[in-house]
C-alpha cells in the first residue's frame, strides 16, 4: 500500500492537509482535513449584545470579512424586523463588490498565478513572480490594495 501525505497544503486560503492511500492501483482512502482550529464563534457570540455581532464575526476570516460582517448585519435586521434604507443597501453592495475585488485579486496573484506563468516548480510563488514578471505582480498588488485604501 502506498500513502501520500501533503501537509500543509500551501498557497491556499486557510490551512489544510491531504492524505491519500492507494492499494493495487485502487484508491483506498482519501482525506482532506481542515487544520484551521475551530474558534467557536457560535458559542462566543451567545449572550453578547446583538450589535456587537457584526464586528465580532468579521474576524471569522481575514480575507472574506465583508461577507461575514454583512451576513450578521442582515441576521440582526431580520431579528429586529428592520428594513434598511435604500442608501444603506447600495453602500453594502459596493462594500461587497470591494470584498470580491480584494479576495479574487489576492487569490490570483499570491495563490494561483505563480502556477500558470511557467515558473520552475521549486519557485512557484509571488516573490519569484515579482522577479520574473514584475508588471503582473505590481498590477495584482495594486488591485488588491485598492479596496483597502478606500475603506
Amino acid at each position, binding site marked *: 500500500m502506498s500513502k501520500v501525505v501533503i501537509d500543509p497544503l500551501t498557497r491556499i486560503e486557510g490551512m489544510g492537509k491531504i492524505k491519500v492511500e492507494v492499494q493495487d492501483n485502487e484508491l483506498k482512502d482519501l482525506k482532506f482535513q*481542515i487544520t484551521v482550529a*475551530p474558534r467557536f464563534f457560535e458559542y462566543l457570540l451567545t449572550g453578547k449584545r446583538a450589535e*456587537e455581532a457584526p464586528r465580532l464575526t468579521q474576524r471569522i476570516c481575514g480575507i472574506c470579512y465583508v461577507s461575514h460582517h454583512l451576513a450578521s448585519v442582515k441576521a440582526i435586521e431580520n431579528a429586529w424586523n428592520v428594513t434598511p434604507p435604500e442608501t444603506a443597501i447600495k453602500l453594502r453592495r459596493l462594500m461587497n463588490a470591494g470584498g470580491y475585488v480584494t479576495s479574487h485579486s489576492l487569490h490570483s496573484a499570491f495563490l494561483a498565478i505563480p502556477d500558470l506563468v511557467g515558473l520552475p516548480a521549486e519557485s512557484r510563488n509571488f516573490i519569484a513572480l515579482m*522577479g520574473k514578471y514584475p508588471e503582473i505582480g505590481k498590477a495584482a498588488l495594486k488591485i488588491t490594495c485598492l479596496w483597502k485604501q478606500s475603506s
Partner: protein
Amino acid sequence: MKMARILLIGLAGDSGCQIAALGLHETLVEILAANEPIYAPTLLDAKDIPDNIDVAIVEGGIRNTHEEEIIKEIRRKSGVVIALGACAAFGGIPGLANTKKGDELMNLIYNNWRGTDQGTIPSHLVSLPEQHPIKDFVKVDYFIPGCPPEVTDIAYTLTSLLSGQEPIYNSTQVCDDCPKERLGEYDKRLKRLHEEIPDPDRCLLEQGFFCMGPATMGGCGAPCPQSGNTCEGCRGACLDVSDQGMAMIDAMTGLITQLKDEFSVGTYTGQLYRFTYAESIVSELARRKKK
C-alpha cells in the same frame, strides 16, 4: 546587511494579519526579496519548518495541540519570534470562548449546533481547554498589536529588526490620537450604538457610548472613533498595564458613578475584554474558582 531567514505562519487566527501586511505593497515585496523567506504556507510551497530561522512572524493564537507543537518547534529554531496581531499577542476574539472548555465546545458545536454535520467531531484536531496567546507557551520577543495590525507598525518593526535596530514602542492611548473634544462631563446612561447618532465632534465615551480608547494602546490614529464607531480595544492594554478591562473601568469611573442603571462587568465582557479575555485577570480568577 545580512540576509535574514524569515518565517511567516498563521495559527489559530483568520489570516487577516497576513492580509494587513499586504498593505505594505511593494515595501513588503522589497523586504521579502531583500531577505530570504523560507517558510510561509500562504506564499511558499515549503512543507517543513526549517532550522536556523532568523525572524519568525506568527499570526494567530494557540487553540489545539497541533498548534502548540508548531509554536514550540518554531521557538526552538528561531532567533526572534514576533507575535503579529491580537490573537498571537493576547488571544484575541477567540479568547472570548474561554468561558467553556475546549472539549465541551467541540461537543457543543459539532453535536448540538444547527448548521454543523451533527455527530461528526473532527478527530484530527485535539482542542486545548482554552485559546492562548503564544506567550503562554514560548518566549515572545516583540508584539505587534491590533486586529488587524497597522501597516506602519509592521513595517517599522520589520525594517528596524532587519537593519539591526531595536524597535521602540510608544506608551500612548488611543485617546491621544483622537481629535474629539473632551469636556469632563458624562451622560447619565450608557447607550448602545444604534440608539442614538453621536455628536461627531465630542468624545464618544462622555456621550455614553462604550469607547475603549482610554484603555487601549495608541498609535493607530484612532480611525474607529473618527468614523463614528467606538474603539473596540483591538490593540490591547497600554504598555505596562496588565488588564485592559480593569483599566477601562478605572477610566470610566466618572461615567459609572453617575449612571442611572446598574453597571455589571458580565454584561460588558465582550467590550471590556473583546481581544484580551484570554490574558485577563477575570479569566484567571474564573480558572482558580473552577479548580
